[in-house]
C-alpha cells in the first residue's frame, strides 16, 4: 500500500504493490527523466555563466514525480504548478527551446521574456503555469477542476505544490470547495522535505501531508516519489477517482531536491551526507536504469544512444536560448489589459 518516506528503505509489501513497467514504459520514463535532468543541469550551468538571471529553481531529484504523473494523464487534462516548473513543462511536452529561452529572457520564450523561470504557460499543452506566489496555484487548479465539471468534458486537473506551500490557508479553502463540489482535481504535494531552508518538521504540525484533506473527506496517499512506477500507479488511482466524479484526491510524493532551493542557496540547513545518501540510494533515474539493464530491455549501448539524443535536444535548447533576440522595448507595454 502506501509507501513510507523515500528516505527509509521500502517495505517488502510496498515493493510488491508496485506493478512492473513494460519495456516501453521503462524506456519512456528513463528518457523523459533524463531529459529533465540534463535540461536542468544545463540551466544551472548557464545560470553560473551569467546567461540566466534572477530566480531559477531546479527540479533535479524530483523527476519521477512529474514523469510518473504525466503517464496517467490524457490530452485535455490540465497541469498547474508553482515556480519549480521546468520539469512539469518538459513532461507536458512543451518545447525545451521555449523554456530555456524564457530563462534567458528572449523573444522565443514561452512568455516572450515577460515571465522568466517561474512564469510560463502553454494553451496547446494545457499547462496553466508556473506561479511565483506560493500556494496560489492550488486555488487556480481547483478552478480548473470546476471548469471541467461545468463543461462535463471528463478532464482532470492536476495541481502540484510543495510541502511548504501546503501551509497556505488558501490550500484548505480549495480543499473544502473541491470536496464540496466534487471537483475532478488531483492535488500532488511534492514533499521534498524542505521549504527553502526550513525543514518540514519546523513548519508543520501534521507532517503527513496525505492526511491534510481528511477533515474534508478527501482521500490521500503517501507515495514513494523517487520510484516512477509507484508514482504512476498511485497517479492512476487518483486520476481515475477524480475522473469518475468521486471528487478530489491528494497524493503526497515523498521526494527530494538535490540542488539548492534556488541558485543562491547556502545549503546550510542540511548535510552533504543527507543529499549524497539520497542520490546514491534513491535516485529516480538510476532506479529505472538498473531495472532496464537487469530486465534486458536495453543494453548499455542503447542507453548511451538515448543519453546522446537527450543531450542534443538540450544543447539545441541552450543554443536557441542564447541566439534568439531579446524582446523589443515595446513589449513592456503589451499584454497588460486589452
Amino acid at each position, binding site marked *: 500500500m502506501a509507501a513510507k518516506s523515500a528516505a527509509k528503505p521500502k517495505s517488502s509489501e510496498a515493493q510488491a504493490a508496485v506493478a512492473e513497467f513494460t519495456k516501453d514504459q521503462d524506456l519512456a520514463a528513463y528518457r523523459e527523466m533524463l531529459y529533465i535532468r540534463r535540461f536542468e543541469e544545463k540551466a544551472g550551468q548557464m545560470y553560473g555563466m551569467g546567461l540566466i*538571471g*534572477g530566480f531559477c529553481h531546479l527540479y533535479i531529484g524530483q523527476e519521477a514525480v512529474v514523469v510518473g504523473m504525466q503517464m496517467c494523464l490524457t490530452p485535455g487534462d490540465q497541469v498547474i504548478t508553482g515556480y519549480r516548473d521546468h520539469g512539469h513543462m518538459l513532461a507536458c511536452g512543451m518545447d525545451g527551446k521555449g523554456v530555456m529561452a524564457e530563462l534567458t529572457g528572449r523573444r522565443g520564450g514561452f512568455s516572450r*521574456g515577460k515571465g522568466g523561470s517561474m512564469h510560463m504557460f502553454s494553451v496547446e499543452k494545457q499547462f496553466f503555469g508556473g506561479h*511565483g*506566489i506560493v500556494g496560489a496555484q492550488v486555488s487556480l487548479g481547483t478552478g480548473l477542476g470546476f471548469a471541467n465539471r461545468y463543461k462535463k468534458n471528463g478532464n482532470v486537473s492536476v495541481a502540484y505544490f510543495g510541502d511548504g506551500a501546503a*501551509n497556505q490557508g488558501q490550500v484548505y479553502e480549495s480543499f473544502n470547495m473541491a470536496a464540496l463540489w466534487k471537483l475532478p482535481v488531483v492535488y500532488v504535494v511534492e514533499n521534498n522535505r524542505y*521549504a527553502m531552508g526550513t525543514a518540514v518538521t*519546523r*513548519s508543520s504540525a501534521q507532517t503527513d501531508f496525505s492526511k491534510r484533506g481528511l477533515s474534508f473527506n478527501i482521500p490521500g496517499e503517501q507515495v514513494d516519489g523517487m520510484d516512477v512506477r509507484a508514482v504512476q500507479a498511485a497517479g492512476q488511482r487518483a486520476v481515475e477517482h477524480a475522473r469518475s466524479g468521486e471528487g478530489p484526491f491528494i497524493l503526497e510524493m515523498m521526494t527530494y531536491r538535490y540542488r539548492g532551493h534556488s541558485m543562491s542557496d547556502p545549503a546550510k540547513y542540511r548535510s552533504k551526507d543527507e543529499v549524497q545518501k539520497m542520490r546514491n540510494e534513491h535516485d529516480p533515474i538510476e532506479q529505472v536504469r538498473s531495472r532496464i539493464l537487469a530486465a534486458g530491455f536495453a543494453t548499455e549501448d542503447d542507453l548511451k544512444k538515448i543519453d546522446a539524443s537527450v543531450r542534443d535536444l538540450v544543447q539545441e535548447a541552450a543554443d536557441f536560448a542564447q541566439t534568439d533576440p531579446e524582446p523589443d522595448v515595446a513589449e513592456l507595454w503589451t499584454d497588460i489589459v486589452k
Partner: protein
Amino acid sequence: MARITMIEAIRDAIDLMMARDDKVVVFGEDVGYFGGVFRCTDGLQRKYGRTRCFDTPISETGIVGVAIGMGAYGLRPVCEIQFADYVYPAYDQIVSEAARLRYRSAGEFTSPLTIRMPCGGGIFGGQTHSQSPEACFTHVSGLKTVIPSNPYDAKGLLISAIEDDDPVIFLEPKRLYNGPFSGHHDQPVVPWSRHPLSEVPDEYYAIELGKAAIRREGAAVTVIAYGTMVHVAEAAAAETGIDAEIIDLRTLIPLDTDTIEQSVRKTGRCVILHEATRTSGFGAELSAQVQERCFHHLEAPILRVTGWDTPYPHAQEWDYFPGPARVGRALKAVMEA
C-alpha cells in the same frame, strides 16, 4: 564606529530591541533557524532562543494575524514578510485588523507591530520579487510606512518602528542591502563601507518617524525621493550638474510636509521619484501636497519619474527601472520649463 551594511544595521536594531525589551518577538518564513533569506535575523535564534525568534509556516495571512493578536495582548511582534510581493495574502489582516484596532476599540487596544519586508527592484527578480507596494499601505489610515535608504537610517528608524505603538510597515529596498545603488546596473557594485552613512553607532539611537533628511542641499530644484531612488537622484544630480536639493523622505506616513514645503518654496521646482508604478503611486500624493502648499512658488509643472504602469518585467528590467538617465532628463526638463 563600525561601517556596516544595511543588513547588519537591521539585524543590529532587532538585536538591540530584543535585548532591551523581552516583549519583542521576531518571526517569519526562514527567519529563525536559517536567519532570513537576506540574513537580517542571522544569529538571533541562537542568541535569544526559539521562543523569541522563530520560523513560521508559509502562511502570510496567519503570520500577520497572529502578530496582531500577540500585539493586542502586550507583545511587540516584529514579523518579516520574505518579499513585499508576498504581502497580499496578509493585506486583509493589515488593513481590516491591524490598521483599525485602535480606532475600532476607541483606543483601548493597539497593534504595536512592525512588519518588515524587502521591496523594490534591481535584482532581476521579475514580477513576483521586485514590487514596490508602498502606496497600498500609505492609502490606509492607521498604518505608518517607513523606507530607509542607508544603514544609519535603517537602524534608527527600525528601532523607532519597533517602539511605536501603532503598526509600522517597514520597507527595505533589497537592492540597497549590500551597497548603495545609483541605477547604473552596468557598473561594479559599490560596497556600503565606502558610503559615510554606513557608519553606525553600536548603541541605541532612534530616528523619529515623520522626519525627512536632506541628502544634498541645492537651489535649483527639489527632488523628493525615498529608498533606492535617493541614490539614483544623487547620481542624476552629479551627472547633469543641476543643483538639486534631494529630500530623502525616510517615512512616507507620517509625511514630513514641512521639509518638502520649505524646500520647494526655495527652489520653485519639484521632481518626484519612485520605483513603483506611476498611476495612483505615492508620487501622486506628493505632487498634490506640493501643489496645495507651494502653488504660488512653483515655476514649472511638477514632474514624476516612476516605474511604468506595467507589471515588473523579467527580461526588460532596465527599461522599466527609473534610472539616472531618466531622472536626469526630468531634471533638465523641469529647469527648462
